[in-house]
């Protein structure tokens, strides 16, 4: 083992090519992971901001809040269910907002209940704003946004993070939303889309409150979103293939390295080294190279994600980086062990010709 590490230090140049290739593959994995998390989080922020509450929707919406239209009186009926602590309305509509002439696509959200993420709903004429909007345009607390085709003015009271819904969100009180949504989409009378319920009542109990209702946890509503699940499975598949490429690249490099060292290994075996020692040395080199590639790749990957324009959905999640790092090292060891058969075949007698 110590010979392997000493060789790595002394002949670092020999390992440089595979280090560069692996570093680039780690950058690719970091960027793919950032897209996977960014796409998912940037579309589900409104739902995740509701925490562990239950959403009640119209059952013809297939758990898609934007397609749900709650019958009148639903919120009041839900408040009467045993175990319900709080009931609030939640609705969204896509529109645009202008700040000093700089126009952005936004999603206007109407809500009643504060959460761990969201403050109490603002008063009429005010809005809580997604921090993502501040990344895209020059807007600060106290500034005025012109929202929708009528350029309705809303004053920014505060910013909250991680609440995007494809576009940055602007949060207003549910009553204000009903009024604003009518101007945003004149072809349809604005209706409350979902109710958000806290307490001990189960989704089944809540859905039974009235005809045509469905209820589900936030996680279940997110899981029912075909776009999010399809994107996730696509990117996870791509990440899997990238790991296979990494495995092949490492295996290729260590095969070449082993071919070069056949004589040396024969000598080592002749003076008593066990096959296990040789394999452990190779594995140690693979771990060392992979660990360095992981550090460099994650650093470069994070740097790259900081350089891209803020409207691209890239989010670095530490847990994802940890999984990628461990998986890369494991794959590198597996790749290096691809030479095991070749090492087993080495005959100590080869050392003397």
């Amino acid at each position, binding site marked *: 083992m110590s010979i392997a590490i000493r060789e790595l230090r002394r002949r670092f140049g020999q390992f440089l090519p595979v280090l560069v290739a692996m570093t680039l593959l780690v950058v*690719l994995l970091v960027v793919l992971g950032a897209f996977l998390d960014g796409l998912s989080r940037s579309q589900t922020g409104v739902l995740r901001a509701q925490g562990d509450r239950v959403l009640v929707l119209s059952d013809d919406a297939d758990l898609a809040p934007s397609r749900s239209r709650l019958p009148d009186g639903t919120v009041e009926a839900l408040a009467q269910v045993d175990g319900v602590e709080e009931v609030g309305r939640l609705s969204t509509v896509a529109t*645009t907002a202008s700040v000093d002439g700089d126009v*952005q696509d936004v999603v206007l959200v109407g809500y009643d209940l504060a959460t761990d993420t969201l403050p109490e709903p603002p008063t009429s004429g005010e809005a809580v704003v997604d921090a993502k909007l501040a990344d895209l345009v020059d807007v600060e607390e106290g500034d005025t946004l012109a929202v929708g085709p009528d350029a309705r003015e809303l004053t920014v009271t505060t910013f909250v993070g991680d609440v995007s819904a*494809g*576009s940055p969100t602007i949060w207003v009180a549910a009553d204000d939303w009903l009024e604003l949504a009518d101007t945003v989409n*004149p072809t349809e009378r604005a209706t409350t889309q979902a109710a958000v319920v806290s307490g001990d009542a189960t989704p089944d109990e809540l859905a039974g409150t009235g005809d045509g209702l469905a209820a589900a946890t936030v996680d279940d509503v997110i899981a029912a979103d075909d776009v999010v699940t399809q994107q996730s499975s696509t990117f996870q598949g791509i990440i899997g293939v990238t790991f296979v*490429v990494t495995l092949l690249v490492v295996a290729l490099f260590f095969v070449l390295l082993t071919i*070069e060292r056949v004589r040396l290994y024969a000598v080592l075996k002749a003076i008593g080294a066990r096959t296990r020692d040789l394999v452990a040395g190779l594995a140690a080199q693979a771990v060392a190279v992979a660990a360095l590639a992981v550090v460099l790749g994650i650093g470069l990957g994070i740097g790259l994600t900081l350089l891209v*324009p803020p409207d691209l*959905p890239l989010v670095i999640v530490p847990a994802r980086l940890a999984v990628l790092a461990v998986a890369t090292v494991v794959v590198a060891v597996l790749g290096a062990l691809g030479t095991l058969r070749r090492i087993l075949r080495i005959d100590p007698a080869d050392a003397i010709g």
Partner: protein
Amino acid sequence: MFLAFAELRRSLGRFTLLGGAVGLLVLLLLFFQAVAGALTGGLTGAYEAGDTDVWVYDDAARRNPQASVVDDGVADAVAGVDGVAVASPVTFTVFDVGDEPTAVIAVEPDSPALPAELSSGSAIADSGDAILAVSGFVAAPPTDGLELAGVPVDVVGEAEGATFNVLPTLFTTRDVVAEATEARAGAPVPLPTSAIAVTVADGVDPVTLAADITGAVDGVEAVDAATAVTSLPGAGTITRSFSILYVLLYLVVAIVTAVFFQILTVQKRDALVLLRAVGARRRDVVVPVLVQVVMVVGVAVLVGAGIATGLLTALQDVFGAGLDPTTVVTSSVAILVLGLLAGLLSVRRILRIEPVEAVRGGGLA
């Protein structure tokens, strides 16, 4: 040349490993391109299928048709600008058809916003006629007895790929959509105009005309069709996001290929010195390397493209993405060229070999 093939045969394992890695990278690249193409096509197909030269929006809509509402009379004002041949109002909205949300594009019967070519059926002739657009990503709703908020619509033609916002898309007449909008709202609601589709008179440049319209008509922003497509929400983001991944994949292909042939050249150095010493010309030792690059990368590209085609065909219902032959050829050639460029590093090292090294010091090690 003979040496190149002989080495490929004898060291098939390591060349297969390189080919496997490059092939998988080609597969990833083509897969990305197909998915990106399908995603952007699903978003922008309706725009690309029509004959519109210039789109006119509300100037606060950020070129987003769903956020744009232009005032009554804008269509007439636009029609009055020199160089405009046709100015036709268009409304973009969404209705539930059956259980599925469907993009509805309300047009006049001869609007340039209608798909120029139909995959089946006939063009809109009467009030209530409709053209249905679907694409691989977007499933078609049942067309029998199709209604918008209870108002019957007769699908007379289909236009493959002319979808909007990754939804099944219905192009139908404005009077029907106005009636359906009122039925849905349960009250008299005027049908707003989202945008004006414009065709230019002969010899007029769409970009110039767009600037003229923006200057001449208050409260609007006009853009040429190509700009309108790239400005649609999501289209630019998808293109730029996938571009980052393409660049990374091309880099990985180049580096993996360069690393492999570099190591191979170092390992063969003694043999190459000997070959040069017994009279082989530089060309004789360089050409086999380039032949090997072309063989290994070429086969990898073929296999990768083959698997990508098969995979995307098998998963057509999931991804709805197909491979554009032009994209396959362009990407394959690009990877082959990158492979050759990467191989040039080895060639440079080979060219530095001096035959006299064979008799220096201890000769060949």
